[in-house]
């Protein structure tokens, strides 16, 4: 028995050595560091496996490096030590830092150099535009993209006698006021709550109403931009939410998603604004009531609302590798954008497919007939071509700026500041950050 076991081990070891020798001789390893864990991580692994099985020249190795911050920091440290991976997943707020880093190989250039002619028109424009430079060239490959939508509790709506919401035409904020009033009157603890308040109530609110978030086309056209969020429209919106807090039509559940999701799941809120990527979690956790998804509300004067903007992350290619390696990276990016992979990605994670071909495929397959709420976000995102101020945000130290906006909003919610004071202060503080950032690259 023991001898047999030993023999087996020797045999396995020998074959491993043999295989390893072959690997070193033949295919080129491509490293991809990402921030997708759990179910999403498995989907990424499967997509990598499909690529590895489809050809024998390259072996892609995907490595989970922690959450977004940790992954970016791992990339920074690796680059400084000259051990950078080929591909790094970085979140949307880090776009400006990555773009200016001088450490990356722009995706449009990589694809051109490797002989791929890609019709970028065949991609979802509001997704691409977030990662383009001022000349409209794509700097990084969009990977996981989401947008905020509105979740509502169907049972509570029925109880309060509110008709169900349309999945294409957004309601107005005035109607939202009436709906939440009815909800509160029918005995629900609170009307509306939202996650990621800066992203949903300031960034996306501005984009959908075609209001500039920052000067210089939201920072796309120069580092010397300044924030403009203390404009009357945004301030009025914040003041309205603050006003709603008095009678419980709106309440604050925390900066990120944990608190607000818990409130919605506990039926303390009838309406909840958050990313489409919450759909999968909602399907898994909410069992005791029915819910549905609708586009985010817009102001009544905005007859033809703009697209919403995305959140999520994209894939950056690091410079400093061999020409041969880049051939593999380009092939991988091409593989990830195939309709087959994109359909799989969308179905499993809820993140958007990035090509129109994949979107058409999903429509043709009847996927959205079966899961109509999955299409709400994508319709809201693509309802109009992005303008200069609705295509995205390109700000240095954006993480700090979001933090500042979050802080100032909290000071509104807890009666420390008026909406105007808070937004003025947010602009002033953010501009200091922008000036600091500008100095680095002078």
């Amino acid at each position, binding site marked *: 028995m023991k001898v047999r076991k030993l023999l087996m081990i020797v045999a396995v070891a020998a074959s491993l050595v043999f295989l390893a020798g072959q690997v070193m001789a033949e295919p080129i390893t491509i490293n991809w560091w990402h921030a997708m864990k759990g179910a999403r991580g498995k989907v990424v692994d499967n997509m990598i496996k499909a690529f590895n099985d489809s050809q024998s020249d390259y072996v892609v190795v995907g490595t989970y490096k922690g959450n977004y*911050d940790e992954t*970016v*920091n791992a990339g*920074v440290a690796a*680059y*400084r030590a000259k051990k950078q991976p080929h591909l790094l997943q970085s979140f949307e707020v*880090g776009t400006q*830092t990555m773009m*200016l*880093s*001088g*450490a990356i190989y722009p995706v449009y250039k990589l694809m051109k150099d490797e002989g791929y002619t890609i019709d970028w028109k065949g991609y979802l424009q509001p997704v691409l535009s977030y990662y383009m430079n001022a000349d409209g060239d794509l700097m990084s490959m969009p990977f996981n993209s989401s947008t905020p939508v509105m979740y509502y509790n169907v049972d509570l709506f029925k109880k309060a006698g509110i008709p169900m919401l349309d999945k294409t035409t957004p309601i107005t904020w005035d109607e939202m006021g009436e709906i939440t009033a009815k909800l509160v009157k029918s005995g629900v603890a609170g009307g509306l709550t939202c996650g990621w308040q800066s992203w949903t109530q300031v960034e996306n609110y501005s984009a959908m109403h075609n209001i500039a978030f920052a000067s210089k086309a939201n920072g796309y056209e120069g580092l010397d931009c300044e924030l403009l969020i203390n404009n009357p429209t945004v301030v009025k919106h914040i003041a309205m939410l603050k006003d709603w807090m008095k009678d419980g039509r709106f309440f*604050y*559940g*925390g*900066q*990120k998603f944990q*608190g607000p999701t*818990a*409130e919605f799941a*506990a039926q*303390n809120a009838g309406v909840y604004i958050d990313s489409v990527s919450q759909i999968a979690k909602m399907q898994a956790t909410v069992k005791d009531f029915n819910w549905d998804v609708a586009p985010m509300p817009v102001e009544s004067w905005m007859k033809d609302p703009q697209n919403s903007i995305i959140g999520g992350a994209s894939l950056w290619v690091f410079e400093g590798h061999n020409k041969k390696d880049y051939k593999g990276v380009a092939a991988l990016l091409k593989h990830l954008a195939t309709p087959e992979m994109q359909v799989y990605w969308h179905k499993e994670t809820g993140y958007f497919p990035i090509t129109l071909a994949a979107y058409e495929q999903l429509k043709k397959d009847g996927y959205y007939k079966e899961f109509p709420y999955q299409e709400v976000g994508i319709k809201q995102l693509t309802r109009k071509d992005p303008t200069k101020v609705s295509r995205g945000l390109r700000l240095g*130290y954006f*993480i*700090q700026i979001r*933090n500042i906006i*979050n*802080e*100032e909003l*909290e*000071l509104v*919610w*807890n009666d*420390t500041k008026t909406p105007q004071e808070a937004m003025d202060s947010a602009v002033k*503080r953010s501009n200091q950050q922008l000036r*600091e950032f500008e*100095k*680095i*690259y002078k």
Partner: protein
Amino acid sequence: MIKRSVFSSRTLPYLLILPQILVTLTFFYWPAVQGLIQSVMRSDPFGQHSTFIWFSNFTALFTDPLYLKSIGITMFFSISVSTVSISTGLFIATMANRALKAKAMVRTMLIWPYAVAPAISGILWLFLLHPSYGVVALGIKRWFGVDWNPVLRGSDAMFMIIIASAWKEISYNFVFFMAGLQAIPKSLIEAAAIDGASPFRRFWTITLPLLSPTLFFVTVMNIIYSFFDTFGVVHVMTQGGPGGATNILVYKVYQDGFIGLNMGGSAAQSIVLMSLIIVVTVLQFKYVEKKVQYTG
């Protein structure tokens, strides 16, 4: 005359302490020097654009009202955590020292929380005190009508992180006080009791002075703990919010440096933090230690 063994070789002693020196240099001095260099530079995270800017990072810090506010918050937090955990630890130790039955078990149970990592402690307390899903929070809101909301109100959030941070440290203090108490001769206390001193007077005039070396040590450790190790608690419970009300210095370094990738600014903050801790410790050793009575 003092007996000591002397090395005949001059190089051997240096050779023997070399490993320790190497470890200290690599893991303590090298990063500290790196931090110092980084703090006088303005640079991007990838290290492609760096300029030497003297002390601009520091002047920027000290002209930022929010940084000064963060110092104030840290002081308040640190003093509160130390006071709560030291007084409770001392109280429990005194009680446990008098316990007759199951003394060993009581002690063991009380030491447990120290084995809990700060982040886990934060999660535990969050499950109790979070306004949306905290068991205790829901209870006090429903039955006592307290409008408890640490997500919205800074003072509530501060209270929450103080409790979560102090809770863990109580065990640590308890262990040391317990050891200190057991070193105090019973005869002294009994003699005082015979002379008619009340339990409080006995504690105040005998136990406490004899416990002062422990108290001093524990105070230094608690302040250092509340400055640095509480990061996990803040990260899990409040992320510095709401409205920056719990943004203690060490969390701000993390936010600006690790998340925000502002290398120069966060390096300057760590240097300030380092100096602050040096000053606190020196002051304690210089002034407080003089009043400490060491026995023997």
